[in-house]
């Protein structure tokens, strides 16, 4: 129904558009509540109880409890909102971003120091699909 989404062919990337925003509304609003120190304390004291105060889906709550940011994003989370969970845990943006790549923290940091993830081979979904197929053969 919505307009074309040409960005769907970019690999390993979710564009936070109005559709994602609608899906992730309560997940992201929960995250924003962690900007208040009292709420961070309450969340840390009993994560599940705090999550149950929000109209989130069970899948969203489990993704938060597992600190699985890719799963949070698949359920409508946006990284700037999700960063409040990382902040509550004392994590840096680099640790959070790295955690979504399947790399270890050290490997991710080393990749960044040596110039970051190259653009070659990372522009189109078909490039990732081809790579995967090669690895499987």
């Amino acid at each position, binding site marked *: 129904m919505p307009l074309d989404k040409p960005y769907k062919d970019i690999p390993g990337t979710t564009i936070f558009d109005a559709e994602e925003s609608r899906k992730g509304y309560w997940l992201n609003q929960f995250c924003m509540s962690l*900007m208040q120190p009292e709420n961070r304390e309450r969340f840390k004291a009993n994560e599940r109880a705090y999550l149950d105060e929000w109209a989130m889906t069970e899948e969203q709550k489990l993704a938060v409890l597992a600190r699985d940011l890719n799963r949070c994003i698949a359920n409508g989370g946006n990284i700037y909102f999700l960063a409040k969970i990382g902040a509550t845990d004392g994590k840096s943006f680099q640790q959070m971003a790295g955690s979504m790549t399947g790399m270890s923290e050290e490997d991710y940091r080393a990749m*960044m120091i040596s*110039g970051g993830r190259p653009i070659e081979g990372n522009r189109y979904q078909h490039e990732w699909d081809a790579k995967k197929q090669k690895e499987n053969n």
Partner: protein
Amino acid sequence: MARITASVFTSHVPAIGAAMDLGKTHEPYWQPLFAGYEFSRQWMKDNTPDVVFLVYNDHANAFSLDFIPTFALGTAAHYPVADEGWGPRPVPAAEGHAELAAHIAQSVIQEDFDLTLVNRLPIDHGFTVPLSLMCGEVPKDGRWPFRVIPFAVNVVQYPVPSGNRCFQIGQAIRRAIESWDEDINVHIWGTGGMTHQLQGPRAGLINREWDNRFLDRLIEDPAGLSQVPHIEYVREAGSEGIELVMWLIARGAMADVAGGKAPRVKHRFYHVPASNTAVGHLILEEAK
């Protein structure tokens, strides 16, 4: 008549603020980055403006999903520092210029730009990190050396404004500032970028070549650059690289775009990495 005398462009990576706040600026990891701003800090001392019109984006700190303004102009007298979850940065709040901001609002809305005006605006790293980079350490009970007018652009939820729209509103902001009849010195800053992607399996993307072509074109061909579609930013510069559209607002406010002389490149710097991000920085000074 108020004069725009320079535009400044810089990334606003939160880790840079953390490095300063935690006293890590001389560590080998950070030293090359801060070296790139040494010139800028001296230049700011020699060319302190009265007001900085600071284009940035809020990162889900002032604005939740309840409220998503495409262009938000701060018309308040005072901007407190946001608590992004780690506690507020130990830097001063910023003092606004409510009168000039109101004047800009009046002028720009009457030119058919659909601003949102904001009077309660806690400023996050997108705002305070450029201040720290350009001004150096300022104790929490001190003051920033100029007043500010925040201009927050939605680059978090798609669709974000087009490069073309950003370039046009920059031109309208110039006209507004120039029609203010007090003789003050104004800088316009564009912040965010360069290449970065903070999410998903492609996180950590850096595209040095694209970034440097962006800097070249921003200097020499901003009108052409303003035609680049969103999809190119996202594909080539990462999902968060879209922040670079904000640089077109500051660039659009320079004299040459309005038919005047080209600005001079006073300083250019590029460095990888700061945390997940490629850092770019430019100072363009108007011809005198």
